[in-house]
């Protein structure tokens, strides 16, 4: 009921004037106060990541007030009596202090850790949404790359944070990190020595990781978050294909007050859910793990979920190692450490550009694609999800073997095979499903939807009346861009088209064909209501509906 012409109250006027006269900011505010944000639940996945990050900064700051990043050995004498008299590092002792002596310390530790889990999970979920709807396409490739960068940094940030309390589990994680670093050809032992300041574990690593964990990496992530948000704001959010969303316009609620309130509420939800988990679900009980001891280990030593894919790759790799001319190359460590994530992250980073190159599509896209309308993309995405998911599960194969009473080596072999077969099957099946859905869409447009009305023709046959799809539904269906007929590879004079020349051009045209060859065209139906079944009977008798 706001009246646009009403005089704003003095306080608002005064404050605006103060800022405007100094910064000249009113034009900016005016332009952005009503900025439109399209609504869809999946658009909020990225917000979870943003808010988890803020919560990580807040709770992390609280923890730094007591945490001592030191590997000096002390003898514990504190309120967790079971460890009294045990030798441990100051880092571990101070984490016990936060947990058992600082009021709210355990809660903050748990919220911090849950927020880290959720941060990474929501980034991944958000990236999947972006990928499957094609929201990474021009002009948004840069934000896609920033996202991949943040996920990678998040993995490191999480690994380092997990290592800080210096408990048995985190020490084991560091031990594996050291083993992987050592395996790098040529410079491995140097990287190892320089990282740890000597031999494992030494006394340097935790102070160093602490600096990286609380300063350098969060700083980088913060910078990338800022860039991500500014680019998103400037480019405007993509929208799902509905009637009012087009490439030229965006439809939705204004930033102020609606979106602002919604996103504020979502921040509160995120904090609330994390507080809920911090209060009622225990995470990383370091007091049960005990202090790090290089001679000790626990069954089921696992990293946090986002490192699980690396763990799984390490587990299922065959033991290939080559020793020649006095040098050793450990493919059994290098391949799992580099190849799976190299394929996934490298592939994800290159994908927008490869896709544009293959399809020759250089246009801007603001309206998302329905996953079924880009079968190759969707199938590749599902193949990647399967690949990642299987490696991730393989990282927990001992827990799986234990809980489901399977043979441990059988699970390893299962994953060794499934990683290839499953990925391939996921591609094929997903593509089939997409094409099936396209066919159904084409059917809906050309024959309409079933009305539930059964008609009896004069000769006694029954049929169901079909009606054209509703306007909104057909808009969604017709948002599909049909494959354009391929340009002939040679023109009338036999001269090859410019982008099909050479081996690269040849590859491009083959890939372009693979992208579209089985596309099912969906054309708007001009006939309107005309349907054979309906027209057949002159006075159809209505039976039921």
């Amino acid at each position, binding site marked *: 009921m706001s009246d646009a012409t009403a005089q704003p109250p003095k306080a608002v006027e005064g404050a605006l004037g103060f800022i405007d006269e100094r910064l000249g900011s009113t034009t900016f505010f005016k332009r952005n106060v009503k900025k439109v944000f399209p609504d869809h639940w999946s658009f909020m996945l990225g917000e979870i990541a943003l808010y988890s990050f803020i919560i990580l900064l807040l709770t992390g700051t609280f923890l730094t007030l007591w945490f001592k990043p030191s590997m000096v050995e002390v003898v514990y004498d504190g309120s967790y009596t079971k460890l009294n008299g045990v030798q441990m590092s100051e880092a571990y002792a101070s984490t016990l202090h936060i947990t058992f002596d600082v009021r709210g310390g355990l809660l903050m530790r748990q919220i911090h850790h849950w927020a880290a889990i959720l941060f990474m999970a929501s980034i991944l979920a958000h990236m999947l949404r972006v990928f499957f709807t094609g929201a990474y396409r021009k002009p948004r490739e840069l934000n896609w790359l920033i996202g991949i960068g943040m996920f990678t940094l998040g993995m490191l940030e999480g690994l380092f944070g997990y290592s800080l309390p210096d408990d048995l589990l985190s020490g084991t994680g560091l031990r594996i990190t050291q083993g992987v670093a050592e395996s790098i050809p040529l410079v491995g032992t140097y990287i190892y020595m320089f990282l740890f300041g000597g031999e494992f574990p030494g006394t340097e690593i935790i102070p160093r990781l602490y600096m990286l964990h609380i300063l350098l990496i969060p700083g980088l992530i913060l910078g990338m978050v800022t860039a991500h948000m500014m680019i998103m704001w400037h480019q405007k959010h993509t929208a799902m294909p509905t009637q009012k969303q087009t490439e030229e316009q965006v439809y939705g609620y204004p930033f102020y007050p609606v979106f602002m309130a919604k996103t504020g509420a979502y921040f509160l939800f995120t904090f609330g859910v994390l507080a809920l988990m911090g209060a009622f679900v225990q995470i990383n009980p370091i007091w049960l793990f005990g202090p790090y001891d290089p001679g*000790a280990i626990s069954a089921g*030593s696992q990293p946090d979920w986002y490192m699980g894919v690396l763990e799984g790759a390490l587990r299922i790799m065959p033991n290939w190692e080559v020793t020649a001319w006095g040098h050793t190359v450990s493919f059994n460590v290098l391949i799992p450490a580099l190849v799976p994530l190299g394929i996934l992250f490298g592939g994800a980073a290159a994908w927008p550009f490869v896709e544009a190159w293959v399809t020759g599509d250089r246009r801007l896209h603001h309206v998302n694609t329905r996953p079924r309308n880009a079968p190759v993309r969707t199938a590749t995405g599902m193949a990647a999800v399967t690949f990642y998911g299987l490696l991730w599960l393989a990282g927990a194969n001992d827990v799986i073997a234990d809980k489901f009473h399977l043979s441990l080596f059988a699970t390893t072999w299962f994953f060794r095979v499934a990683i290839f077969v499953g990925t391939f099957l996921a591609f094929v099946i997903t593509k089939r499903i997409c094409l099936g859905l396209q066919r159904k869409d084409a059917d809906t447009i050309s024959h309409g939807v079933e009305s539930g009305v059964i008609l009896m023709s004069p000769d006694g046959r029954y049929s169901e009346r079909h009606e054209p799809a509703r306007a909104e539904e057909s808009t969604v269906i017709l948002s599909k861009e049909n494959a354009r007929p391929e340009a002939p590879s040679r023109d009338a004079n036999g001269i090859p088209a410019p982008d099909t020349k050479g081996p690269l051009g040849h590859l491009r045209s083959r890939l372009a064909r693979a992208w579209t060859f089985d596309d099912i065209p969906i054309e708007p139906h001009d006939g309107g209501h005309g349907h054979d079944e309906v027209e057949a009977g002159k006075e159809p008798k209505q039976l039921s509906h």
Partner: protein
Amino acid sequence: MKRFTAWRRRPWAGYAVVLAALAAIGVIYAGFSPQTDRAEAEGTAQAAQDLANGKQLFNKNCASCHGLNAEGTKDAKGKPIAPSLIGVGAASVDFQVGTGRMPAMNPGAQMPRKEPIPPFNTEIKTDYEEKEKREAAEKQKAQAEKNLEDLSAYIASLGGGPEIPPASATDPSKGNVALGGKLFRTNCAQCHNFTGQGGALTGGKYAPPLSHSDVTPTQIYEAMLTGPQAMPVFNDTTLTPQDKQAIIAYLVQTREEPNPGGNGLGRIGPVSEGLAGWLIGLGLLVLAAMWITAKKPKKLKKS
């Protein structure tokens, strides 16, 4: 007096004197050390009877696999079916039979813990309301305890071996829990996990969980001492009884300790945490997102 002298010359007199002396010593001994002594006090006759009972139980429940003389059996190819029990000791019998692992029902990768068969089930319910039922159950329990003791004694009589630890050696409240934690993490956690939740071994075998209260301190001690199935042996000269008591103290205190941070998620570490993060954390927030972005309710509008 004469009569006594005459008695003295009877052939059985020597035996009678020895018996009387033994009885006297037994009584005196029993008087001085009331704990250790029942067997001696009651005499060898009782012991022999117990052994006979043990042997009978063995023949009935164990001999089909382990052989009539507990020498172990092999199949046609010479592959062992069941090991020899000579020298495994009372501790081993008490552990295997007391936890229901033996007699084994069907040979698999590993014999699982299960409810012991009735003659050896010392864990039966006795707290019945009705007097007769309660008494019957108590009697049955006492018989089961005795059966287990007799069977253990019988196997021990075949070739010695580790004995059942006395209750004083397994009292969890007497152990050094800090040392126990260190020893547990170095020697046990690799299979049984930090908090004794168990874990996978090769070929379908597994380290069983130690976190349930029905795994008694005595059974933990016996397992270390005898190394049942795939488990290595930690004899009393490698890990002393004090060390073992420390480990028991650590385990029992750990499993009795509440989880200060809420639900412990099975205390198995990051796998269940990741699952909870995705399902509960992300799940709840997706529901919240759906609520926030759902279409506005119609009824509020003026029409």
